[in-house]
């Protein structure tokens, strides 16, 4: 029997998030809030150069400092096993492996003391001497090792060179995007405790199941002897998707000392310890006929990567799926640099690709005189352009039409510099977005008891997207009980394995697993000869059972390989209005309309919050955020919140968020994921609006004041 979501009594409703009361009371425990009996504190020793070797280490002063229990550096630390590769690509280079320095801020030692202040003070006393080399910091540096993206991003259909040569109209643009720091508010923390051969670790991770495997391998213990706990995370935006060295070092220190050890990164350390969106440069060439119908797309990208690091984070992967075009080629390379390791940041790759593609489409609209919305409709991919299969759902047309209507796009004068408001030039721009389907296997355990209450258990965590809440809503809907009868136990690897909270894939995978469990439960109830409409309580009571337990499983990516539809990700369109003061170079986003097709929306309130969060982070990307490296030393030059600017409350314009579309036909719950789609089309919409306002095409993010003067 398949449990269905047909009734929609609970699902979709804008209920308050069920963990909200704990959060506003300060009662939700984040990793840094955990203190264990006997716990001691760690601080990191970080490299002050970006390239070279360590020639001398003197630990003696630090070891003699008050309260210091241990100082570990590469030359006195136990050797660990290399971490394994996982579904997210290679993990980081094992810390304290040797004397090599690959980037500024590399963790080259850990100091453990009785108090945090003692550890921090002693970390400054570890004396390190280096043989410094000149770092390679720029993707254009001829010394940089450049390789094709090893994850197979090159693709080709048709004959792009011939189509470009024959095109009526061509666009050829180069687009650059500065490195961005995820900068979640929560300081990443590890509290590691070995209890005999068993490791319990509170860690700021979005991928508890992956972390468990990695730590088990590195410390050579069975997976079941590692427990990762992360009930509340404090934000990640992708920063918590990789295994980071501070986690390993803290776990190592706890093992060496046989005491619980706690490490909280400082804010400056956050800027070089937990990844970032890689700086990138893209070239997009478009060919089209006079009516703006695309005949060729050539998309080339190069992005920065740490030395010895291999991260998929593909930029051009989405390009072949975006538009109906017979001739499409993609190429992607990585330049390995002496920079802190890159990571994943909200809509990694997709957002970079869309900035380039949607800017180029705007240039094509300008050249052909075709309205930008109409241009996207003329090139609309009615079926999946790669597989030729029908989409499992696609309401991008609705996104464009509803967005155009809500924004008041029709009647816009397409001429740049055509609208003034006082001292300001006013411009309007738009962009659309295609996000790829993504899912990993997920398992849940569902228990119903005699009181009719249900408990759902899975290792995956809630990074603020609302996983607790939608899990309760889905379960309540499928079981026909109230939301407050559902207990959600997540963020704990003693529960069944789940995918990471990332790639907009958890809600869909988890929802499908819950539905599978509910179906299994329905089968069990049928075997118990339940009367129509009989409550769980009555049924269990009648059979003298205390509870029923079932397991649910989903593998949507596996199912996708033999589906007769093309599983779709989310779609979106954004419309932006900016005001530009040309005398001062100041740009302000005046209003923003975002329309999203995310399939079935599980909770209208938390979904809207995701869309708002994406839009505002998109404003940051478009106008504020860039991680700066000192070009001579490779030092992170703006690693504080005073220097690296993220949007504040005053930066947020009038925001209009709308969801369109129908439940997806491939995912059994109809969901397509919402965590990332809301950011994808924001930066290009703003850049296109700046062009419309000023006639200046800025192909380099962020669009800061200096680029306008």
């Amino acid at each position, binding site marked *: 029997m398949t449990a269905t979501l047909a009734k929609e009594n609970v699902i979709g409703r804008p209920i*308050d*998030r069920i*963990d*909200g*009361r*704990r*959060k*506003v*009371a*300060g*009662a*939700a*425990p*984040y990793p*840094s*809030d955990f*203190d264990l009996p006997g716990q001691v504190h760690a601080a990191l020793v970080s490299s002050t150069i970006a390239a070279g070797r360590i020639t001398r280490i003197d630990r003696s002063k630090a070891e003699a400092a*008050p309260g210091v229990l241990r100082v570990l550096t590469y030359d006195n630390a136990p050797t660990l096993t290399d971490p394994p590769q996982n579904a997210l690509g290679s993990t980081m280079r094992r810390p304290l492996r040797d004397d090599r320095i690959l980037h500024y801020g590399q963790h080259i030692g850990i100091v453990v003391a009785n108090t*945090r*202040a003692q550890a921090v003070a002693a970390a400054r006393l570890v004396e390190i001497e280096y043989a410094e080399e000149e770092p390679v910091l720029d993707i254009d540096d001829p010394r940089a090792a450049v390789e094709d993206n090893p994850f197979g991003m090159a693709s080709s259909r048709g004959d792009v060179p011939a189509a470009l040569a024959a095109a009526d109209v061509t666009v050829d643009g180069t687009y650059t995007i500065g490195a961005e720091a*995820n*900068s*979640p*508010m*929560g*300081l990443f923390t590890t509290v590691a405790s070995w209890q005999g051969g068993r490791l319990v670790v509170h860690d700021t991770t979005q991928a508890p199941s992956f972390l468990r495997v990695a730590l088990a391998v590195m410390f050579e213990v069975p997976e079941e002897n590692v427990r990762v706990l992360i009930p*509340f*995370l*404090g*934000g*990640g*935006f992708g920063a918590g998707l990789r295994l980071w060295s501070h986690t390993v070092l803290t776990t190592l220190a706890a093992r060496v000392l046989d005491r619980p050890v706690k490490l*909280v990164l*400082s*804010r400056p350390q956050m800027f070089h310890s937990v990844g970032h969106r890689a700086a990138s440069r893209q070239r997009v060439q478009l060919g089209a006929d006079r009516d703006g119908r695309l005949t060729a797309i050539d998309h080339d990208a190069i992005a920065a990567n740490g030395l010895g690091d291999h991260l998929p984070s593909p930029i051009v992967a989405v390009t072949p799926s975006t538009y109906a075009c017979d001739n499409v080629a993609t190429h992607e390379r990585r330049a390995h640099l002496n920079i802190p390791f890159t990571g994943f940041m909200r809509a990694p790759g997709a957002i970079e690709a869309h900035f380039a593609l949607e800017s180029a489409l705007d240039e094509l609209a300008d050249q052909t005189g075709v309205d930008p919305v109409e241009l996207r409709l003329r090139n609309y991919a009615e079926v999946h352009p790669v597989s030729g299969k029908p989409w499992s759902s696609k309401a991008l047309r609705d996104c464009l039409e509803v967005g155009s209507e809500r924004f008041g796009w029709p009647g816009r004068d397409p001429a740049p510099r055509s609208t003034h408001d006082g001292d300001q030039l006013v411009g309007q721009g738009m962009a659309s977005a295609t996000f790829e389907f993504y899912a990993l296997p997920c398992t849940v355990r569902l228990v119903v008891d005699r009181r009719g209450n249900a408990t759902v258990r899975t290792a995956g965590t809630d*990074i*603020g*997207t*609302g996983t607790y809440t939608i899990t309760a809503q889905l379960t309540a809907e499928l079981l026909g009980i109230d939301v407050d009868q559902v207990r959600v136990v997540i963020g704990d690897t003693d529960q069944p394995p789940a995918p990471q909270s990332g790639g907009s894939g958890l809600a869909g995978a988890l929802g499908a697993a819950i539905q599978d469990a509910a179906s299994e439960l329905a089968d069990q109830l049928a075997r118990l000869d339940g009367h129509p409409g009989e409550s769980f309580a009555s049924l269990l009571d009648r059979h003298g059972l205390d509870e029923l337990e079932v397991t649910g499983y989903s593998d949507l990516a596996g199912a996708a390989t033999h589906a007769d539809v093309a599983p779709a990700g989310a779609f979106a369109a954004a419309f932006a209005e900016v005001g530009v003061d040309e005398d001062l170079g100041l740009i302000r986003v005046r209003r923003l309309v975002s329309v999203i097709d995310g399939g079935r929306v599980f909770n209208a*309130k*938390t979904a*809207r*919050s*995701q869309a*708002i*969060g994406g*839009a*505002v*982070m998109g404003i940051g990307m478009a106008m504020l955020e860039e991680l700066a490296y000192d070009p001579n030393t490779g030092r992170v030059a703006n690693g*504080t*919140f*005073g220097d690296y600017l*993220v*949007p*504040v*409350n*005053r*930066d*947020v314009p009038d*925001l209009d968020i709308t969801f369109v579309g129908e439940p997806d036909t491939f995912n059994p719950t109809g969901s397509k994921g919402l965590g990332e789609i809301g950011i994808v089309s924001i930066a290009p919409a703003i850049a296109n609006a700046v062009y419309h306002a000023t006639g200046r095409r800025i192909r380099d993010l962020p669009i800061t004041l200096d680029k306008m003067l």
Partner: protein
Amino acid sequence: MSSATTARSTQVTVELRVNGRTYPVRLDSTTTLLDALRDELHLTGTKKGCDQGACGACTVLRDGKRIVSCLALAAQCDGSEITTIEGLAEDGHPHPMQEAFVRHDALQCGYCTTGQVMSAVALLREGRTGSDDEIREFMSGNLCRCAAYPNIVAAIREVADS
């Protein structure tokens, strides 16, 4: 306040009055109010986001006015009345601002939320809720990377108007 000097640090005894209770604590004179609250009093509802006074996550009230507790020394707060998120509820009922934050989904990951709520409560007393723009301006010292900003404004607006 009494003090004893050692070669490396100065220990001080401070009477911290927090949420109506008095806590005599002995700590290093350089200890921030934030660290004292979290490490000595185990009031972990106040969060550390930057330890540099730039993010607002550690906002508490000192004698009714909002401060970032990472930039105040605990020793300076001897004799002050400190209110943290744990002291906002009355008779077990959440403060109306806390309830409005939940209702308007003025939070996502929740890490900055306690600082936002404390800042919002102070904002009401400061009389800075005349317009949404004024709320935005005077809440801009509290960063929220999840960007719950519009919902934070809506929550404050509702409480201010009630």
